[in-house]
């Protein structure tokens, strides 16, 4: 088989990701620079000399192009510059401190969503048109219609305030129990999306001619699903992973706010409100890189799973 083809394919994807990333950095950088005001505006008027000193310290007196080049140079060395609002802290340090928490909550939510979504989707597809299918479909439709910021407070209201079985906030919970509500809140919409997607693609695959052939050959349902239908039905789900990751990131901003989790999402919103532009820029670039890298990974997985892409 054509191993070189697969490697070339992967290499091309990798190369194609670089301009995308560059575009993100340029757009983010320019937007931040076009934004009026800075973190020091809100404070009382500083003497001109001090202001000039600050500007020099942060290289704000240089032309934009020079600032950009300086920033890019730092970026290549993993340096996202100093934070405006957290003095003595670099943006890289702040991200490194807050990201692991977001990753834990987001990763668990994604895992839960995949597990439940795929099983519910396949179950509904196999019983297409039955009552179970209609119930699953209706629940999934409700799931995509309930935003995270509605689900999260309602969950807190019922499970923490009324029933009192789970902690309402991060700081008030045990090391395991405090994960439960945020992870569920974050996962619910994704469970709904993944269920719908799995169900739809599984039904489409099950209706295809080659599944009819498998049935004509007397293969049982379990064999048909496992050996014939599963792989093609999962491919659209793979394409959905990009938007799903973006959805989890967006949701984490809300969930961290509601449960008071000191993760990257909360840090980002805080930075935006405080006009800590280097931190905002750093977060955006970090997120974008994350999404692009994960998309790249998904793309390669896709190429690996689909024989028509793999072998040419």
């Amino acid at each position: 088989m054509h191993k070189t083809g697969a490697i070339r394919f992967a290499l091309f994807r990798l190369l194609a990701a670089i301009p995308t990333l560059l575009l993100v950095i340029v757009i983010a950088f320019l937007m931040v620079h076009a934004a009026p005001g800075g973190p020091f505006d809100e404070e009382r008027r500083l003497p001109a000399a001090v202001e000039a000193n600050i500007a020099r310290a942060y290289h704000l007196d240089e032309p934009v192009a020079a600032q950009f080049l300086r920033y890019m140079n730092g970026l290549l060395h993993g340096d996202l510059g100093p934070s405006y609002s957290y003095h003595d802290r670099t943006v890289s340090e702040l991200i490194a401190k807050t990201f692991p928490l977001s990753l834990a909550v987001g990763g668990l939510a994604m895992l839960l969503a995949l597990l439940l979504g795929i099983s519910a989707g396949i179950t509904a597809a196999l019983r297409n048109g039955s009552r179970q299918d209609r119930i699953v479909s209706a629940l999934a439709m409700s799931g995509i219609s309930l935003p995270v910021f509605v689900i999260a407070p309602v969950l807190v209201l019922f499970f923490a305030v009324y029933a009192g079985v789970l902690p309402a906030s991060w700081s008030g919970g045990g090391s395991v129990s405090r994960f439960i509500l945020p992870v569920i809140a974050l996962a619910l919409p994704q469970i709904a999306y993944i269920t719908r997607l799995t169900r739809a693609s599984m039904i489409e695959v099950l209706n295809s001619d080659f599944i009819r052939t498998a049935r004509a050959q007397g293969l049982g349902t379990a064999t048909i699903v496992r050996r014939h239908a599963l792989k093609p039905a999962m491919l659209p789900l793979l394409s959905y992973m990009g938007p799903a990751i973006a959805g989890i990131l967006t949701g984490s901003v809300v969930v961290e706010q509601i449960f008071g989790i000191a993760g990257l999402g909360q840090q980002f919103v805080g930075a935006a409100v405080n006009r800590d532009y280097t931190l905002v820029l750093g977060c955006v670039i970090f997120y974008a890189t994350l999404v692009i890298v994960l998309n790249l990974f998904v793309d390669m997985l896709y190429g690996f799973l689909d024989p028509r892409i793999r072998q040419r």
Partner: protein
Amino acid sequence: MSPTLLALAQRIASSRMVRGCTIMLLLTAVVAIIGPLLSPHSYQTVNFDLRLAAPSFGDWHVFGTDDLGRDLFVRTMMGVQITLVVAVVASLVSLIIGVIYGAVAGYVGGRVDALMMRIVDALYALPFIFFVILLMVAFERNFLLIFVAIGAVNWLDMARIVRGQTLALKEREFVAAARISGVSTPRIIFRHITPNLLGVVVVYVTLTVPQAILIESFLSFLGLGIQEPRTSLGALVERGTGQMEQAPWVLLLPAALLAVILYCFNFLGDGLRDTLDPTERNR
């Protein structure tokens, strides 16, 4: 009427759930417009004697009052109005950008198409919501900006779909037949391609609206959207979250309404999409 629109209309008429959702949305819109006019209360009158009052018909506080004693019914209806207006206008913005971009890329084809679609791919990879947040923070908040921000996020899907359809239509034999018959390019675009895009566009606008609602309420929830004393459903949910322990209705009523509106739009869009895509239908 064109056959696609006719089929969509028939779909609404024939499925009980799709019809129910359409009626529900129309009803919500009508109540949201008329309700505040009939109510004796205003959306901004503060009444500290009547904070967090439970819903009652006695003094026409049918949804109760919020933490400043303002009538929650009138405020919620205002939220519905603003949410719907923002969503519809933002969808139109994304529709216009998306259709023009997609149709041009699809019909011109070749390298232009390849370049235009690489840009869309690149934009897809961006965590766009963070740019929207950046946008909302960096610039003066105003209503117009919300439309632009949401439209800017949502046009990508529309552009991809329209481009795909245009490419497919361009290769269809009836377009070749028209070209051979001597039909001019503008007439081909307007008589042969655009009418056949209509169904897809209508359906995807229906699906874009709930997405726009989600983004708007997300921004409002973070305090980056609509500003007090005006309000939207997202902002109401945010305020309600703070009060939910003493007065759960302040959270639950706007939240439920938001969920119902989103549900109806999603269901309607889904139902309409089935008419275009017969594979999903044959059970």
